């Protein structure tokens, strides 16, 4: 399992994460920032647990993020 964490406040809505992992990210029509699909929010930080099959695409999303607001962690249940 992996945990994807999105510090959304500093997001600049560049779309890089959507390009890298379109099944997991989309751009909000309301504020133009990206949304981590199916994530839960706690104090403006969004996170989600998902399978290892999504790792490589989301690592790319994290690396390509210009403001480095995406973190990927290994998760041991």
């Amino acid at each position, binding site marked *: 399992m992996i945990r994807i964490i999105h510090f959304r406040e500093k997001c*600049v809505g*560049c779309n890089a994460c959507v390009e890298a992992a379109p099944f997991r990210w989309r751009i909000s029509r309301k504020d*133009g920032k990206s949304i981590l699909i199916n994530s839960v929010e706690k104090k403006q930080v969004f996170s989600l647990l998902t399978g290892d099959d999504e790792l490589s695409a989301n690592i790319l999303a994290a690396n390509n993020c210009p403001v480095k607001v995406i973190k990927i962690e290994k998760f041991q249940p």
Partner: protein
Amino acid sequence: MEKVKLLSPVGSFEALQAAIQGGTDAVYFGIEQLNMRARSSNNFTVNDLPLIKKKCASDKVKTYLTLNTIIYDHDRSLMKSILNAAKKHKIDAVIASDHSVLNYAKQLGIPVHISTQANVCNIDSVEFFSAYADTIVLARELSLRQVAEIVKQINRNGVKGPSGENVKIEVFAHGALCMAVSGKCYLSLHSDFASANRGACVQNCRRPYIVKDKESGIEFEVDNEYIMSAQDLCTIGFLDKLIKTGVAILKIEGRGRAADYVYTVTKCYREAIDAFYEGKYTQSKVEKWMDNLSSVFNRGFWGGYYLGKKLGEWTDSPGSKATKTKVYIGKGMRYFSRNKVGEFKLETNQLSLGSDLLITGPTTGVIYTTANELRVNDIPVDVVKKGELFSISVPQKIRPSDKLYKLTYSE
């Protein structure tokens, strides 16, 4: 000849108040992320617009909204909602470069200023954009002669904007310069996937570099290792020549800068412009203004590309060459308006008699003062220690939202 207008950068409510205090004619600011300081400045939100407008209206300061990044399809709904909000709150103009913004602003009837990101360098481009805009910001890489020629041709050909009046030309007068032609730098995108043209520049050009021969591995010594970091533009020494080109608006760069920077630079240029029209623009005044401008953030100054000849002057240090640096020491508590005394709490460091102080706040703006008398529990003291409440005389009202800084000097 109509008096040239001064336009100041605003990245926070502190800077907004500072620009108004400094005597600016208009301010420009970004809201949300579709502007060239998406990374570096604390941008306002749509909800801040009424307060910005209210603060500016009482001082008859015009408000310009920057919306000048590249716009992708996924940005369109945000771009439209920002422009709708700008229309609702009667923002005076939008600074834009992308055609989608020009088009939608025109539909809404919001006046448009063409951003320097559009790189307007010739009269044909001015004519092209005149279908959308009454004010055009020229590229920063033109010489005074080229700027004057464009203004002359606008007047000769009668190039009119949507309002029916001749197109006005705006140029940068002061602030940081890009090492690339504005809007054409891909260095940050290449190294960090952070597009400068989406406001996310990581400023690679401001760092030192070495030159290395790939074949032998020998590193070459370069006189100045900051080979790409341009010094800051400063035109106060030839402001008379700049105004005589016929430009209508002088713009100060720096939405990422602090309130004291905005105040000092705005005030110097306000005084210089007024002095020019009163026939009192003199060399001794220029020297005084240069001293003041050097006291706040700068990378050393040069005249930009206006004077021709030199291709670029590079700075030799990573950060600021400001002769004054500020250290945060405490916050405002309350103000006794009858005897003009402000009470502060010293949160760190210590403060001794005679120190120069800077107070900034969203309503207060910027106040420079000196601690001529320090009192703790109403007893005069020479030194205030960390954690103590103390009072000093301050000419203007201070508030709990204010921050107190100690100024130190370097040569």
